[in-house]
């Protein structure tokens, strides 16, 4: 009965065009006073990383460091304007962007050619931890950075056969010193690894299809994952570090490429293979909006610190949305 009263979904605030190939990764940077004008990084199928100014809505610079191979993960480090980009040329590059530079400071050679995105855990200013897909197809490798020393390799038990890791997330419980790693696997399960003990704390089967993306709310210790299948799964972590599925949410069309919870943990966005971005209320999982703007699969979504939403799609466009913003 409320249906006729529901407002029409909004249009994007603006659209960034010009990557000339499918957009595989987007990442916001800055927006606070200290870091200068807000930027958006986008990684494309053609191996380029575009840096967009959100003020002028133009590219500021283009980084070409992956030899034409697709860039599928972008992440900035907390200690200043440094960007990590992961490409399918088996390189993970660390870019120095301070003071207008754009040079590769360092690079890590990867041993997996899959689509798995890496993850970092920045403990302090100097040392940080990097999780990357490992040499064997089901391995995850943990590196100490910037020394690039291998801490350990997390290999599931022989009889588990979870398939390839599809997405990674390093995190640390607030009172606990031990870093933890969440891995979404090819068989649709999500596992929690204790890195120091190198064992699986808990593993649950969330989906029937490979997990394509998840996000984890470390405060509520709840996470949400999307898969190639038709459902979103919300799972939580209890005090004994055991994962359990809270509930699943059925979608109209199958295939979720990426899931992201907004930093204020109010809403979350999913990137759908059905060309649509879906917005949900994070606490209740109530569907809030279905944004049908793109004309091809949406590959990635990202939220800025101020709540702005960016979505990159196979149709070579990046759409920027402002939804449910606190005014």
């Amino acid at each position, binding site marked *: 009965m409320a249906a006729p009263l529901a407002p029409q979904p909004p249009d994007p605030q603006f659209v960034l065009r010009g990557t000339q190939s499918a957009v595989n990764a987007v990442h916001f940077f800055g927006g606070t006073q200290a870091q200068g004008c807000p930027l958006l990084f986008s990684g494309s199928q053609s191996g380029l990383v575009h840096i967009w100014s959100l003020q002028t809505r133009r590219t500021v610079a283009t980084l070409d460091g992956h030899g034409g191979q697709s860039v599928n993960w972008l992440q900035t480090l907390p200690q200043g304007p440094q960007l990590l980009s992961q490409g399918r040329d088996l390189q993970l590059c660390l870019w120095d962007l301070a003071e207008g530079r754009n040079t590769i400071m360092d690079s890590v050679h990867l041993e997996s050619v899959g689509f798995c995105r890496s993850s970092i855990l920045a403990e302090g200013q100097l040392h940080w931890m990097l999780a990357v897909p490992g040499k064997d197809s089901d391995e995850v490798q943990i590196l100490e950075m910037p020394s690039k020393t291998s801490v350990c390799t997390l290999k599931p038990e022989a009889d588990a056969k979870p398939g390839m890791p599809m997405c990674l997330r390093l995190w640390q419980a607030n009172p606990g010193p031990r870093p933890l790693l969440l891995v979404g696997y090819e068989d649709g399960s999500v596992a929690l690894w204790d890195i120091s003990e190198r064992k699986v704390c808990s593993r649950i089967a969330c989906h029937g299809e490979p997990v394509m993306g998840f996000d984890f709310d470390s405060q509520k210790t709840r996470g949400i994952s999307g898969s190639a299948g038709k459902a979103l799964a919300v799972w939580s972590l209890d005090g004994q570090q055991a994962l359990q599925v809270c509930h699943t949410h059925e979608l*109209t069309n199958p295939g979720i490429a990426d899931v992201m919870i907004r930093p204020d943990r109010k809403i979350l966005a999913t990137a759908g293979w059905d060309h649509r971005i879906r917005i949900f209320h994070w606490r*209740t999982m109530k569907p809030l909006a279905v944004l049908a703007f793109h004309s091809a699969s949406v590959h990635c979504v990202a939220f800025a610190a101020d709540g702005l939403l960016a979505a990159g799609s196979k149709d070579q466009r990046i759409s920027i949305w402002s939804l449910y913003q606190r005014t």
Partner: protein
Amino acid sequence: MEPARSAVGLSIREAVHVLQSSEDGGRVLSALESLQRYLRGTAEPALPGEQEEFAAKHFAVVLRCLVGRLSPRWLQLSPGDRLEQLWDSFFLEGPADQAFLVLMEAIEGTAGPSFRLMKMAQLLARFLSEGRVAALMEEQCRPQMKPGFPLLQETLLSKVVSLPDHLGNHLQQDNLAQFFPQNYFPLLGEEAVQVLQSVVDSLRGGLHCSVSFVSRVLGKVCIQGRHKEILGRLVPQLTARTQGSCLWQRVCWRLVEQVPDRAMEAVLTGLVEATPGPEVLSRLLGNLVLKNKKAQFVMTRKLLFMQYRCTTPMLQSLLGYLAMDSQRRPFLIQALKELLETWGSSSAVRHTPLAQQRYVSMAVLICLAHLGEPELRDSREELLASMMAGVKCRLDSSLPAVRRLGMIVAEVISTRIHPEGPPLRFQYEDDELSREMLALATPRPVGDSPLEARSSSLDPVVAETPAETMEGSVPPAQLQGSDSELDSDDDFIPYDMSGDKELKSSKAPQYVRDCMEALTTFEDKDMERWEAALKALEGLVRRNPEATREVSVELARVLLHLEERTCVAGFEELRQRALVAVTVTDPAQVAEHLTSQFYALNYSLRQRMDILDVLTLAAQELSRPGRLGRSPQHSSVGPSTQCSPTLTASQSGSVMVPDWRVVVENRIRSKTRHFSKGSPWQEPAGGPNEFASVAGCFFFPLIHHFDRPLVTFDLLGDDQLVLGRLTHTLGALMYLAVNTTVAVRMGKALLEFVWALRFHVDTYVRRGLLSAVSSVLLSVPAERLLEDLPDELLETRSWLADVAEKDVDENCRELAVRALLLLERLRDRLLSLPS
């Protein structure tokens, strides 16, 4: 005693003499006063013995004499209205029965409107309003010894009951409101309650009384059809008074028992209607059905099997009454068995009206609700057998309403008789009737009034709601507990998500042939393409008539055999519309194919009925005038484009580009000055009936083979549903062929068809036949009907008259009457034609 009596007699004779002859006011007054002493309740009464003698022997004489003297002049004999008062008092205070009889007699004996008549009518009105009727009836309730008493009582009875008729007849326009039946009978009801009260009182006092006169009055009133008025007053009073009093209950039972057999049915029907529920009925009737054969017959057979006019509450009262006492329960079980037998008889299904079938079904359900497990177990086999027979013949019926009744009743019976077995479930749409019937079937504890039952059925709902709301409110509370934030973000209003549809990856085919290919594919991966093809087909066919014509028969065959392979929404409709489009595009070829397939082997009934539906719809579309709304314009541009492949282009072009004619006309209109404007006159679109040329292809192949049974298909046997559909289709085709040359031949063939099937047992078939007759009468020109088909018309007419009078189905009777009216009109038109 003897001399005293004679003394009374003498004085009275003297007084009467004075009254009859004297014109002197004083003497008349004194004579009247002397007579008044003999009435009860006067200042200086006479001896009781003398009073009795006066009442028994002389009162009527005195009254007659008084009536005889009545005139304005006589009343003026003495000054003041003393004389009139005295005159009145004799009627109002003397023995009520005699006063009443004399009054009635006098009123009947007085002709025409006159002072006397009006005076007496007013007196009678006073008589009624002062409760003298109650006194009259009370008198009759006392034990009587007098000779000739039954005769007197009989007279009184008829006068009391027929008072409104007599008064109405005599007073005509001057009738008083008190004598109207709607006022009189309620009054009589009140008076009866008074009488019963005094009977109860005297029984308490140890006196013997009989209520038979009241029973007879009640019976007679009910026979006259005034049960609503009298019982409307009587029943509430009795309900209240029998509440706590055994004596009242006994009086009440006696009252109903004493009703003559002749009137028993009327009284019982009235009582069942007037009582609010089975408890009250049980209180008022007691075990009447055990004591009185007639009552038993009425209650257990007549009201259930021979009539169907009781409303549902009445049925509930009736059957609830039977269920309320252990001695009466055998009747209920017997009634259920017989009801189910009736319900299960195939002849009853065919030959009784729907309303009665519904009535019997409801009665069955109510019986079931009242009967307990053990009682049902004893006669389980019998009940089951009747039910199975009933379900079978009901599900065979071609009327949806009958089928549904069968489903509902069968579900309920099976759950009651076989509570342990798997429940029987049918698919039927939930509507008011089904809900009502299912509600009837829910058993309620015996001795529960409907009101109590309602409140108790409400109770669990009331109890559930708080629990539910609490459950509903718990999860958010828990979430809030774990979530330190306030839920201030609950004001996120969702956007409209109606556009969130499933994404279709494959493109719809662009050509008719592609569609056909996609539809005939059997690979599962192409299901999306199959769906898209099905959805696109109708549009493609309509846009590309030429391409369709090349493959029309093939396409129709594909569509006819198409099975629902995925859960496409509206599959049946899509398929039907595509088939209709193909048929309309190439009527002759496709109709020939479809009609030949109708009688072919190896089709399901569903497919055969689809064929009929498609033929009807296609014929309807073809015959619609102005179907090709643009065709006149195009023909003026150039007839050659009409049939060329460019037709589609020009048609689609005309949609987008405004037609040049319109543009020119607009321009002319804007440049032209009109001195006066007539009403805009629109010429109705005219065009040839396209159905005319192909009507034969649709019609004759269908009608020719109906009587040749195949192995898989026997129209005249089991497949009467299809036959019914066929008759309707033929009727529709006939109707659509109006104004065509082939209509006469079609009409002849159709009338023969109707004649062959006119006594078909299935209602649906008969309805089809009747509507077919109507369409013949509408479509075939009147002259041709009379010239070519006079014998058929006469035969049909007599058949129609028969149906209109005797058919069990209301719809059939109505259709027959319509057809007869059409015949009448035909005849009138022919008669009015100048010869």
